[in-house]
C-alpha cells in the first residue's frame, strides 16, 4: 500500500486475477483467507500479479493421474490394399484406445496418371514408333513408379531411353488433354501444354552436361584459354565500335578548344582504335590483323609500345636518346613497310645493346668482388654478390680515366683491387 502511494497509482486499477474474480470490489481492504495479514501487506495490499497457489488448493486432493498402459495390439494400414494385420505397441490412456487410421497412412501419395480408353487411343494416340502394348506398359509403369522415369526405363521391357519414354508420355498426355478439353483455351495454362517436352533439347542438354562432367583438367584449361581469347576479341570489336562512334565527337570537341592564333596543339596520333599496349609482339600483330584497315604509323606505334612494355621508363628514354644520337627520327618521316620494319629492328638492337652494357657492368663488379676476397663466407651465386656490390657502388659517380681502361684491356690480366667501380659506358667512348 505504501509503495502504491509512492508511485501514485490508483488503488483499484489493478486487474484482479481469475481466482479472485468472485470477490467483492472492496477486497483491497480485506485480508484474503489463507495468508496472514503481514504477508499480504508485502504485496501492497493487492493481489499479486502472478497467480499464487491458494491454500484451499493445497488442501484439495490432487487429481488422480492418468492411467497409461501400453498394449500390444493389431492394426491395419489403410494405405495397403491387402488386408494385412500387423501388431504394434499402443499407448492406452485410461483404458481408451487411440482412434484414427494408422498414422503413416497419410503419406501414401501417388501421382494421378490419366487413363485413356481404347477409343481415345485409336483416335489420338497412335504413333508409328510405339505399339499399343508398349504404351500401355509405359503407363502402367508410370502409375506404379510415380513417374520416376529412371526406374521406369530400367523396368521397361524393350530398351528405350529415358528421353524417349518421357517424350511418349508427355505427348500422350498432351494429346489427351487437348482432346478432352472443351476448348483449347481451357488447358492452355497446363504446364504440359504451355512448355512442351522437347526431346532433342533434353538429349543435347544431357550430353553437354555429361561432357562438362567428364572434362579433364587439360580440356578445362584449354577451354578457359579459348574463352579468354574470345572475350578479348569481342572487346576489341566493341572498343573499335565505341571509339569509332565517339571519334567525331572527340574531333569536334578538340576543334572547339583550339581557336585562336598559332596554337601548336598536339596532333592526336591517327588511330582507328585506341588499344591498351600488348606485351607480346605476336599478339600485337594478331590484333592488327583483326582490324580491317589501319594506318602504318598506327601499327608502328603499337609495335613500339609492345617492345617498350617490357622495359622501364628509364630504358625507354635511353633508347630514344640513342636514336637521336644516331641521327634517326623517332618517328620515321616516310613510314613505309620496309622503313617501319627497319625502325623496329633498330630499336630492338638498341635494347640489346643497352642490356649488354648492363651485363658488362655486372660482370665487372663481379670480377672486382672476386679479387677483393673480403667476403669471408663461401661465395654464393655470382648474382647475389653482384647485387650487394652494386648497391654500394651505384650512386657513386665515378670519373673513369680512359687510360686505366686501355691498360686493362691491353694486358688482359686481372685489374688491381682498386678498380672496383663499374664504369658507365657512353656512346662517345667508341
Amino acid at each position, binding site marked *: 500500500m505504501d509503495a502504491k502511494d509512492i508511485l501514485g497509482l490508483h488503488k483499484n486499477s489493478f486487474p484482479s486475477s481469475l481466482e479472485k474474480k468472485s470477490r467483492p470490489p472492496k477486497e483491497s481492504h480485506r485480508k484474503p483467507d489463507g495468508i496472514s495479514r503481514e504477508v499480504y501487506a508485502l504485496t501492497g495490499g493487492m493481489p499479486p500479479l502472478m497467480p499464487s497457489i491458494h491454500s484451499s488448493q493445497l488442501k484439495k486432493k490432487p487429481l488422480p493421474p492418468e492411467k497409461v498402459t501400453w498394449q500390444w495390439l493389431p492394426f491395419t494400414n489403410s494405405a495397403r490394399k491387402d488386408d494385412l494385420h500387423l501388431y504394434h505397441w499402443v499407448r492406452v490412456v485410461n483404458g481408451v484406445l487411440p482412434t484414427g487410421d494408422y498414422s503413416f497412412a497419410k503419406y501414401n501419395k501417388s501421382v494421378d496418371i490419366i487413363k485413356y480408353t481404347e477409343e481415345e487411343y485409336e483416335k489420338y494416340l497412335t504413333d508409328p514408333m510405339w505399339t499399343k502394348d508398349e504404351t500401355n506398359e509405359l503407363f502402367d509403369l508410370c502409375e506404379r513408379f510415380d513417374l520416376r522415369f529412371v526406374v521406369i526405363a530400367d523396368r521397361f521391357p524393350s530398351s528405350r531411353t529415358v528421353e524417349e519414354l518421357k517424350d511418349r508420355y508427355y505427348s500422350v498426355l498432351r494429346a489427351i488433354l487437348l482432346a478432352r478439353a472443351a476448348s483449347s483455351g481451357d488447358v492452355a495454362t497446363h504446364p504440359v501444354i504451355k512448355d512442351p517436352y522437347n526431346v532433342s533439347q533434353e538429349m543435347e542438354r544431357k550430353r553437354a552436361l555429361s561432357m562438362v562432367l567428364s572434362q579433364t583438367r587439360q580440356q578445362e584449361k584449354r577451354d578457359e584459354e579459348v574463352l579468354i581469347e574470345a572475350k578479348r576479341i569481342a572487346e576489341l570489336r566493341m572498343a573499335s565500335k565505341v571509339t569509332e562512334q565517339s571519334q567525331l565527337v572527340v574531333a569536334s570537341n578538340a576543334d572547339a578548344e583550339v581557336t585562336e592564333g598559332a596554337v601548336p596543339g598536339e596532333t592526336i596520333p591517327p588511330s582507328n582504335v585506341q588499344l591498351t599496349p600488348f606485351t607480346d609482339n605476336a599478339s600485337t600483330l594478331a590484333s592488327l590483323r583483326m582490324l580491317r*584497315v589501319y594506318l602504318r604509323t598506327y601499327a608502328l606505334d603499337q609495335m613500339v609500345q609492345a617492345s617498350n612494355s617490357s622495359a622501364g621508363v628509364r630504358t625507354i628514354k635511353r633508347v630514344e636518346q640513342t636514336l637521336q644520337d644516331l641521327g634517326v627520327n623517332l618517328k620515321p618521316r616516310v613510314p613505309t613497310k620496309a622503313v617501319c620494319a627497319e625502325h623496329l629492328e633498330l630499336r630492338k638492337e638498341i635494347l640489346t645493346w643497352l642490356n649488354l652494357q648492363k651485363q658488362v657492368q655486372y*660482370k665487372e663488379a663481379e670480377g672486382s668482388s672476386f679479387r677483393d676476397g673480403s667476403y669471408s663466407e663461401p661465395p654464393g651465386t655470382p648474382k647475389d654478390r653482384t647485387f650487394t656490390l652494386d648497391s654500394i657502388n651505384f650512386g657513386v659517380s665515378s670519373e673513369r680515366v680512359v687510360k686505366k681502361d686501355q691498360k686493362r684491356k691491353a694486358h688482359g690480366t686481372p685489374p688491381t683491387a682498386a678498380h672496383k667501380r663499374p664504369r658507365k659506358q657512353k656512346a662517345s667512348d667508341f
Partner: protein
Amino acid sequence: MPNTSSSKKHCQDQPQLSGPIPKSHMAKSEENKKNSGKKLKDVEISVPIVYGNIAFWLGKKASEYQSHKWTIYVRGASNEDLGVIIKRVVFQLHSSFNNPMRVVDAPPFELSEAGWGEFEIAITLYFHSDVCDKPLNLYHHLKLYPEDENSSMSTKKPVVVELYDEIVFPDPSEAFLARVQNHPAVHLPRLPAGLTLPPPIPVEDASKRRKGDTKDNPLSQWFLNFSEADELLQLAAARQQVQAHISKLKRQISLIEGQHKQLKSSDQ
C-alpha cells in the same frame, strides 16, 4: 564494279558446263570459284598517301576573319588517283565554319577554305564497299603561320605541312585485289605462288572519267617529296653502328668471363 565481277564469274561457269574441257583450265576455274569471296591470308595491300595542308597568306586582301586561304587534302604519295580505293572523304572543320562537315565525293580529295585560325581537322576516309566497310580516321593540325615567327609572310610562298602514311588492308578480299592489282596507287606484295586472279576488269572509256590524280594539280608544285630511300639509308647506317657496339660488348663480356674463370681456378 561488283556487278561486272560477278558477270565475269558467270562467263567462267559456261565453259565448265559445255563439252569436254582441258583439265588444267577446269582446275583453274574451279579454284577461282572456291576462292571467290574468300579473303587471302598472306597478302597485305598498302596504299601510300600524303595528307596535309597548304596555306597562302592573303596579304593586302586579308581581312580580320580571313587572313589565309588554305587547302587541306589527301593525295596519293606519287600523286596517283585514290578514287580506286576511297569512295569519299569527310573533312570535319572547326564548328565556327558553316557546315563544318564537308564531304568530298570524288577525287582529288581536297577542300579549300579561307580563315584565320589553326585547328585540328578530322579527316575520315570512306572506302568502297569491296575494299573495307569501316572508315579510317586521320587528324591534321591545320598550319597557317610559319614555324619561324620572325620570317615574314609572303603571298607567294605558302606554308606547307605534309605527312606521309600508308593505309594498310591486312586481309583484302579477292575482289578488291583483282580490281586494283595493276593500279599505280596501290602497292601489292608478290602474290603467293599458285594464286591466280581474274584479270582486272577493263575500265570504262578512260577519257570519260574525270581525272582523279593530282599530278597536274595547281598546288602540285608545293608538294613535298617523300622517298623512303633516305630513311632506309639512315636506318641502315644506324643499325650498323649499333651492331658494331653489340659485338664489341659481347667480346668484352667473354673476355671478362675468361678472367673470372682464371681467378676461380687460381683460388682453388
